[in-house]
């Protein structure tokens, strides 16, 4: 259950049994061709996969450097890569005979994905969400309820994602017998980080095949944003043994020199969060600190343990991008390509655009466009209208 030094199961005793049961069933499922077939059928017939690989011709011309390709996870059902994982785990829950799933959510994207698969597969769904986030993301709360999910407000801590996750874990501790905990990223105790990665690797697998079809060789560089890090792990994993340079992009918020950022690898250090040994943002006493990013999906004080390992082994380069840089990249892509990306994804875009101009026109880059920006319209309106 480790990625080098990182990972593990740092959980209350009550969860050790359920985690073991999960691991056993997961291993069986991943060896079962019928399960994998069903998973891929649902991705194709329900979620809309394969997602497109788009050549960003105008963007490429605009920057005048490397050729830029976008992996279009925004085209998934419900608008982000989250769906791949939610489908995988829901199928596993069904296979395990669990009738109820629970999930944590920050901005509500994973909550919507969980509520969606719960509806699709006939499971009860309870989503834990911080009170502050519930206020900020009224529409997603409504969406989850429309999908039949129960949204449980979390008032502990600051009422945001970290607290919702704690509360989901607490609820799971008390109800693990008949509940399946559907974690939304490559975080949490083993086997979650591995499981979520394996349900997200379809991004990288498809990308590789699509890229070879159009360019006949692999991209020189591949970019993905990193909060918990599931879209990045899904994209990177199939390329780990290849020559492509891999770049994970964290949220620098208002700047990594300030206290308001979510650049876990850049500024954090190893510790335990949500059951896993990884990098996190903490004070000198080991108290976890509140992160900040304009992007709700990157606003997390930890990071998946496999990223910590890839950081330590230097297989992946990690950079950070500020709110402002991300918003500029978002606007630029929107104007050049007619694609409004999620603010999360815009972090990857910003780093890629910075580097693309320095690269030659026979080089290629691939950016994982992890989700669409529709969910961010209120934030964008506020930002760009203030700017005017």
């Amino acid at each position, binding site marked *: 259950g480790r990625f080098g030094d990182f990972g593990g199961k*740092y959980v209350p005793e009550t969860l*050790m049994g359920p985690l073991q049961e999960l691991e056993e069933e997961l291993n069986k499922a991943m060896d079962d061709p019928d399960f994998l077939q069903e998973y891929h059928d649902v991705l194709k017939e329900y979620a809309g996969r394969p997602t497109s690989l788009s050549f960003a011709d105008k963007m490429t011309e605009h920057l005048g450097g490397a050729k830029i390709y976008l992996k279009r996870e925004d085209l998934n059902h419900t608008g982000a890569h989250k769906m791949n994982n939610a489908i995988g785990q829901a199928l596993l829950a069904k296979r395990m005979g669990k009738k109820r799933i629970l999930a944590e959510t920050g901005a509500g994207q994973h909550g919507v994905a969980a509520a969606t698969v719960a509806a699709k597969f006939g499971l009860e769904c309870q989503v834990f969400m911080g009170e502050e986030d519930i206020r900020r993301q009224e529409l997603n709360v409504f969406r989850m309820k429309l999908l039949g999910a129960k949204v449980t407000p979390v008032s502990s801590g600051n009422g945001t994602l970290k607290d919702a996750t704690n509360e989901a874990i607490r609820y799971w501790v008390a109800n693990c017998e008949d509940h399946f905990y559907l974690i939304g990223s490559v975080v949490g105790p083993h086997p979650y980080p591995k499981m979520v990665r394996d349900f997200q690797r379809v991004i990288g697998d498809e990308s590789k095949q699509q890229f070879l079809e159009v360019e006949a060789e692999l991209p020189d560089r591949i970019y993905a944003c990193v909060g918990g890090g599931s879209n990045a792990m899904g994209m990177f994993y199939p390329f780990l043994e290849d020559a492509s340079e891999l770049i994970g992009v964290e949220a620098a918020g208002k700047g990594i020199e300030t206290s308001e950022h979510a650049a876990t690898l850049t500024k954090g250090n190893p510790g335990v969060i949500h059951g896993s040994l990884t990098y996190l943002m903490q004070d000198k006493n*080991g*108290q976890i600190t509140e992160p900040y990013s304009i992007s709700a999906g990157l606003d997390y004080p930890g990071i998946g343990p496999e990223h910590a390992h890839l950081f330590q082994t230097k297989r992946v380069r990690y950079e950070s991008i500020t709110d402002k840089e991300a918003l500029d990249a978002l606007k630029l892509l929107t104007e050049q390509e007619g694609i409004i990306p999620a603010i999360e994804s815009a972090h990857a875009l910003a780093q890629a655009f910075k580097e693309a101009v320095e690269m030659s026109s026979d080089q290629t880059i691939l950016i994982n466009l992890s989700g669409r920006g529709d969910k961010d319209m209120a934030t964008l309106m506020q930002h760009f209208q203030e700017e005017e």
Partner: protein
Amino acid sequence: MLTKTSFKGKLTKTEDLFIPFIVAGDPTPELTIEFALRLQEAGADVLELGIPYSDPLADGPTIQRAAKRALKNEMSLTKAIELVPEMRQAGLEIPVVIFTYYNPVLQLGYDRFFELLDENGAEGVLIPDLPFEESEEIRKLASERDVEFISLVAPNSDKRIKQIAEHANGFLYCVSTLGVTGERNEMSADVLTFIKKVKEHSSVPVAVGFGISTNEHVNLVREHADGVIIGSKIIRLIEDEIEAFKDGEEADALERFNKSVRELVK
């Protein structure tokens, strides 16, 4: 058997143990010392001294609130351990178990952590998010330093019960939310089976915790286990007096606290 539960010789019995839990620094470090003494007066055999943590994922809302109050006072793992000699000076004789999440220990480093325990005379440690599989190294270090490393066991620990019980030190903490919370006045057959199974394998006293909040619960547990652990209920008794402490009516409040605890474990 007593060699495994000695707490440096300070735990003198292995049955009918009363193990209360308080959070260091809640609502102030000074009062924490007072609570420790009043609990000893009320018959406590071991004190669990909780370290407030930002993300206490094994705790319910009551202990979360206590942690929040303590963190406002900038309580930390180090400062909490350093309260122990002050307690001793004020008359505390029962063994103290430091109850802390893993991350603060990790940040301090094992060496410094055990040095601190040793320097300040804390006899045990309990880390709720460090299960058997992740605790091999720290258990070894604890054993070398003569610190009791308390393990937890749950009804769903299943075949791990044997493994955990056989490696137990100090006392064995049975997590038993299933049987005794709420209004029920008897334990379910499942819980009885569970406790029986734990006792079979354990060479240390078996104490039951989680959700014990009335004298009926306490007596029910006493019938079947070697000890009773009371956390949230103790914290709520402290919360009942928070305003009194603020208003400077300390002596009366502590007297009422002591009386309530005595009622609980009578």
